[in-house]
Structure formats: C-alpha cells, structure tokens
C-alpha cells in the first residue's frame, strides 16, 4: 500500500505559512508559493505558467461579488449613507452594539439556512449598514471610541456576518457543500440522504449561535470598560 508520495509540494504550504506570519505582501507570497509548488512537483515552466493562468481565469467569479455593488455603495456613501445609519440607530435607546449584532447573527444564520445567502455580505451589508449602525450604537452609549476599540468592534461586525453565513448555509439542503458531501460519499460507496446530512448539521449550528452570542454580549461590557469616560457618556445619554 506504500506508494511513493512526493512530499516536496508541501514546500508551497511552508512558503504560505512563513510569508503570512512574517507579513510579506500576500499577493507576492501566493505567487511565489504557486511557482515553487509547481517546481517541486517537477512541472515544466510553461505548465506552471499555464496552470496559474487558467486557474486565475477559472475563478473570476470571486471578485465579482465584491466589485459589482461598489458603485451603488460608493454613491450612497457620498450622499451620507453611513452618517445616516449611525444617526438612525441612536434613535433606539435600548440598542447596544452587542444586541444589534446578536439580532443580526440570528437573522443572518436563519435566512442562510433557508437558502437566502445573498441577504448579507461584506460590501453590500456590513460596510454600508451594519458597521456604521454598530458604531453609532456604541458611540451614543459610550462616547467616542479609541482607535483600537473601534477596530475590534468593526472586526466583530465582519466576523458576525461570516459566522452567521457559514453555519447557516450548511444546513440548507440545496447548498453546494451538501451536494459535494453527498457526491463524495456516493463515490465511496455510502448512500446518505442529503437531507440527513443537513439535519445533523443543526446541533453545531445551534451551538455556534449561543457561543458567538455570548461573546457579543460580553462585547458590550468590553466597550463599557474600554471607553475613556463611560460616566459622562451615560449622563449625555440620559
């Protein structure tokens, strides 16, 4: 059973890890890793270039999702969308950044589980709406946020969108991942209903909601502790 397996292509993985840890430009790191992996697998130079080229053309759908909404979002930002989103949320006295994000996590995860994965997303939802609203809620409670605190809050907005999407979409039967698992298991001679794969994802999906919500609940406490003068901000809010 011991066939000769070429371990040299793992050099590409090493380049990626070292490159990312040392914070070189990721584009450059990836390009070097791709070339080196090809060399290690003893591909000739023109095969390496052709593999890079055709791989790049095959995956052109990836930047579309980000690129296409930019014109609309940019135009609305020019006319004050983000400012308005911040003011809009501060009208709700009970809104905190943590509560807003918990509500968003719930909606994002359940709609994704129903197959509506395009209802969120970073360019069309997080940047123009969710992030300014979370920031607005935090500012109206705690006053101006220090740069580090603001960065952590905004990072949590993006993280919440990711987590809701990932763990929601995978319990939707018609999602590609379910089809992939089903096809692979069929190939291995195991016949499983796609519905049953989706069903057994539910315990994990429920757990992630509670775990991440707990962290968002604590985010409010973090915001209160790490803003300069919470007492003043509270007085202003009253």
């Amino acid at each position: 059973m011991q066939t000769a397996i070429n371990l040299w292509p793992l050099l590409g993985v090493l380049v990626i890890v070292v490159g990312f840890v040392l914070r070189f430009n990721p584009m450059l790191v990836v390009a070097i890793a791709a070339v080196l992996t090809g060399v290690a697998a003893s591909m000739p130079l023109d095969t390496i270039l052709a593999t890079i080229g055709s791989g790049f053309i095959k995956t052109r759908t990836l930047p579309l999702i980000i690129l296409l909404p930019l014109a609309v979002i940019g135009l609305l930002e020019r006319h004050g969308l983000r400012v308005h989103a911040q003011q809009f949320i501060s009208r709700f006295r009970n809104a905190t950044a943590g509560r807003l994000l918990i509500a968003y996590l719930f909606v994002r995860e359940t709609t994704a589980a129903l197959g509506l994965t395009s209802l969120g997303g970073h360019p069309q939802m997080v940047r123009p709406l969710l992030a300014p609203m979370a920031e607005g809620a935090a500012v109206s409670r705690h006053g101006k946020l220090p740069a580090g605190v603001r960065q952590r809050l905004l990072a949590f907005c993006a993280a919440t969108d990711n987590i809701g999407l990932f763990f929601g979409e995978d319990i939707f039967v018609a999602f590609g991942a379910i089809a992939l698992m089903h096809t692979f298991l069929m190939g291995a001679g195991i016949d499983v209903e796609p519905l049953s794969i989706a069903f057994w994802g539910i315990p994990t999906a429920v757990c992630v909601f509670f775990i991440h919500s707990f962290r968002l609940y604590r985010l409010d406490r973090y915001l209160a502790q790490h803003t300069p003068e919470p007492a003043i901000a509270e007085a202003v809010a009253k």
Partner: protein
Amino acid sequence: MIISIQYLYWLAGVVLAITTVMTLADRNHPKRWTAGLFWGLFAIAFLVGERLPPVAVGIGVLVMAALAGMGGVGIGSHRELATEARAASAKRLGSKLFIPALAIPLITVFVAVVLKPLKIGDLFLLDPANSTFVALGIASLVSLALACWLTRDTPVQAMRESRRLTEALGWALVLPQMLAMLGLMFNDAGVGKAVAHLATAYINLDYRLVAVIVYVLGMALFTVVMGNGFAAFPVMTGGIGVPVLVGVFHANPAVMAAIGMFSGYCGTLLTPMAANYNIVPAALLELPDKYAVIKAQVPTALAMLVVNIVLLYVLM
C-alpha cells in the same frame, strides 16, 4: 441561456477599464503608472481572459503580484462632497438612502429564487450554473439606477465612487482569486495526498476519541492551509473519515460529514487564505490591522472545534 455569466465578466471588465483610465489620468496619483498597469491587467483578464493563451495570463498574474509586492498599488486623489453638502443630502434623503442599499440583497434573492426556473422558449433566462452571480449583477445595475435617481447624481460620479472603493481595497480585491488559483495548483501538485499521508502515517488511530480528534482538527488544519473546506473534505474524509470513523467505528456517515464540514468552516474562520471572508472585509472596513477580523473570530472558532469533537464523539 440568455443572460450568461460572460456578460458579468464584460461588465466587471468595463468597470475596471474605467478605473484604469481614471487612475492613468490622475496627475496627482502617487503610483499613477504602476497602479494603472495593475488595474489594466486585471481588466484585460475580465474582458478577454478566456481567449488569451493561459501562459500569457500566467505571466500577467505574476506581473500583478510583483506590482502589488513592491507597493505599486496606491490610492489616488478623490474629491468628496463637502461635509455640509453631505449633511444636507443625508438630511434631505434620510432613510430613503437605505432603499438602494437594501435593494441589492433583496433583488438578488428575488431574481435568484423567482426568475431562476424561468425559460423563454428553450432557453433559461439566467445562466443556471451561476444564477446567484447573475442575480447579483442584475441587482447591482437596478440599484445603481435607483441610487442615481434618488441622489440626482450621475453614473459618471458612480464610476468615480467605484474607483475610490476599488483603490481603497487595492490588491485585496485580487487576493481571493490568487488563493483559489493556488488551491488548484496545490491540487495538481498533489499537496492534499501528501498531507493525508502525513496525518495517517504517524498517528495511532486505534482509539475512537483519537480518531475523532484527528478528523475534526485535520479538517480544520487542512482548511487553514487550503483556505477552503471543500478542498479539505475529500482528502480528510477519504483518508480518515470513511476508512476509520465509518469503517472501524461504524459512525453514521451523515453525522460525520456534517460535523466534518463544519470543522472545516472553523478553519475558514482562522485563515488569511480565506481572503474573501477574512482579509477583504478588513480592507473594506479600512481597518489598519489586516488580521483584525480573524482575531475577532479565533475564540468562537476554537470553542466550536471543541464542541464539534464532543458532538461527533457523542452523536456518531
């Protein structure tokens, strides 16, 4: 099909070509020529990429990587609306500003769900393999018209805004595609086989709990390296899941597959390789720390890996 994904590539190509022209025409741009070349090459990949020889595209990709690596992709000058004008505009439009923003996801869902099965004659209206992307393209165009009408601004201004955001993203916009390309390269070079070989050859899988832990953590680690749970699944499930968990310990394959894939997703939350989810959002939110989103996700991902080990051990 009537509306194919090819039209979207052309649309993206035209948008990027306009960005290129605006960058080259910007006399105050600190990186005028290198940034212009970078966006120009990217535009060409969208406009005529499938008709060029793959070797030529490969060379273009390496040139783009070199331009990004030497810091050649900078941000140009941009004239914002004066603060008072913006405040007046926000006041006049109020919550109406939300309409075009919310229209993008809502129209996307509507088109993808309602118009997807629609046929005119024998032809599908939307490209069936890429219906969500096509739906997003249509939604973006409709919302753009809506936004122009609402703000009484011009499509030219919209292109300037698009260029501003594209330049703010910089090379981060291209990185997801580079990583997907690397994933294909890893595949061709047999990286997956090498990793599965290392994992199975040096760990004793005779204990049920050890096998569960190796499968769950293997899915996560492999996803961290490849940036994609889909790439990890066949390798880890073929290497450990089917022969050991199902074959030896009689696990329910549905439980194994579902929890295995979720363990891969925990890996996705941890890795800069999943640039579309982790690096691009940090760039979009203009965070100084490119790893800030990953840092916010680490505790949730690690907790979920423990949960997955427990769930798989108990439920299988």
